[in-house]
């Protein structure tokens, strides 16, 4: 069974890049445009991995991660957030909120796939 991944980002082009890279590696990808949509989708369906931006309208990534971690079904599901070099403070906050790992922008598809493989395990 292929792993299903939810990508949450308010930037459609970034979601598209994530989708292309991950579907290319054989994963199934679902997209959400902000934290609220991401939370709704992740509540309705179980994903094997969630990749999220932090800065988003409506509901930011930190809040979404925190909300997701309160759900028993979300225990153990890896959540990787996308960040930039300048956000070191956010990194600690996101981890405290329950994120598993992160990926620093700009990244290329190989780096993204590598991270997905890493957190999904064998």
């Amino acid at each position, binding site marked *: 069974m292929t792993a299903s991944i939810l990508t949450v980002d308010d*930037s459609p*082009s*970034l979601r598209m890049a994530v989708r292309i890279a991950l579907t290319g590696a054989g994963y199934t990808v679902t997209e959400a445009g902000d934290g609220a949509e991401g939370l709704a989708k992740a509540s309705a369906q179980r994903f094997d991995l969630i990749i999220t931006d932090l*800065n988003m309208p409506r509901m930011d990534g930190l809040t979404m991660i925190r909300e997701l971690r309160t759900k028993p079904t979300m225990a*153990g599901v890896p959540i990787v957030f996308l960040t930039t070099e*300048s956000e070191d403070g956010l990194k600690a906050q996101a981890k405290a909120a*329950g994120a*598993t*790992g992160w990926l620093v*922008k700009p990244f290329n598809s190989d780096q993204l796939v590598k991270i997905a493989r890493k957190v999904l395990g064998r």
Partner: protein
Amino acid sequence: MSDNDPVAAFRIEAGELLESVERALLDLTEDAGNRALIDEVFRGLHTLKGSGSMFGFDALAGFTHHCETAFDRVRKGQAAASRGLIDVVLSALDYMQSLLDAGSDADAALVAAGDGILAALASAVSDAPAAAAPTPAVAKGWQVRFRLPPEAMVTGSNPLGLLDELRDLGDCTVTCRFEDVPALADLDPTECHAVWEVTLAGDISREDIEDVFVFVIDDMELEITSLAPEPSAGVAETAAAPTEAPRAAARQTAPAQESVRVQAERLDELMNRVGELVIAQSRLELIAAAGTIDAMTLRAVSEDIQRLSAELRDTSMALRMMPVSNLFGRFRRLIHDLAHETGKTIELVTEGEATEVDKTVIERLADPMIHVIRNSCDHGLEPADERAPAGKPAAGRIVLSARQAGGEVLIAIQDDGRGINRARVRAKAEAQGLIAPGATIGDGELLQMIFAPGFSTAAAITNLSGRGVGMDVVKRSIEALRGTIEIESIEGTGTTITLHLPLTLAIIECMLVRVGEGRYAIPLSAVEECLELPAAEVAGTSRRNFLDVRGDLVPYLRLRDSFASDHPADLYQKVVIVGQGRGRVGLVVDQIIGNTQTVIKSLSRFHGGVGAFSGATILGDGNVALILDVAALIGGAQKAQRARSERPAETAGEAA
């Protein structure tokens, strides 16, 4: 939008981001310190930087970084969102747009052009020095001992995955220590208490091992001890610097594809309708297969299909609709800039921003509206020192409003300025020979003179407007959208220019008429009334080709003659009075068939030059009806009328 081209998607998205940042900045000028707005600006810049760097727009990402940093300081309360800062960032947005247009081809000159803007931003920017890169160390083997934080498994870390990764590095011996695992009664099964000891053999660097634990390294216990003495740091330098992976983002200069952003619920609605249509179609199939036709059932299906196709038409049209707020939003910046340039204080009020208009209309409205707004700000609004004596507030006011009325959208640009000086318009019109000196002319007609080519009453040519181009272009653009312009002006109080636009360009309500054997569609919005042609006119005893419509003389065209129909004429000829703008003309037809919804098909390349028709449509019975171009017919009739008045002896039965 190409579904698989993130670069193209990014260009569209970045344009929208720049717009939303601009909007938020302009809002900030009115509502300084609004947290939500500051966050919106920051978030927009942040996304622009992040995505820009992803898709090869390095110059853009680099530049945006500085703006983002500046706004981050505002966000953290270390700096104020001052007028000065907002102005700098606004100009920075324009520059970002040019970087966006240049893409990865941004040359040194363009990049250097941003330095001035950055200098203005510099006070708010402080760059942290880059951390020195650690030197990698290599050893023959390692003893690794680690304990994950208790919540590691809940937050998605997988100890087995980590062990697998260590195994991928080299030969591994793994021992698990359970000493710290609580007794079963006290055990929370979601927590991780085990300690692992791993002996790793091979040519592995300490960084490789740390890399495995990259996401948890700050919160965990990790001891990495070398099995052999570590080599000195100097040796490590021979390791090749990691080569950066080539950017995949191939630059494309393909023309921007037109795309529409559609709300998901509208698509769902469309899918629902299509689903219902499929059901109706299968019901129809059942009826056809039954052999005997039950009229009742057939009628029920027919009614369903009729309803569904009407709904489908509306929903699919709605896909192309956009709120005018998209359009009005662009003008806030324009007015901000105009206020700067003219030194006037200008207040912008918008009304009815939720009114929806076809996307094409919105796009093609921007330029004409810019002209009108420039004119209003430059010529219409008086300088503050003239406003006070007139009893007006110092700030000039521009009101943009939109509302729907029937099949039309009305967009009004209103100013509370000095109004149009009729005497000057008349003098100018007479000087240009547009009207005869001293001729009697209606007020509306006089005001319409400002739309004549080359017409300008501006005493001085300014940077903003008054070059004598513009208003006639405005009129042409609006007419190209099958719209009309109405102008109202009260001297000393202000001017209102109202654009009447069709709701959509794809479907219009038409009156279907018959001339000889041919059927023609006349856009219903242009139809004013229908009359019977008086007997005297039918007989052709009158040569004037004018009708007396309640005291107004209206010229008329015999479409039979225009279209050279040799089919015998009906006994009672009808006249459809059509009007557009100031012109009115009667069209003589054989029969008025009724109203019809018309899906406009454009004429082929070969027929595109035929002036009297604006398109064609397919009728219910499969026949084609041509759609009359009312503006061209009115123009033709007026020309014929002038020709006749010059050569009264001849009759002109000319085709429009």
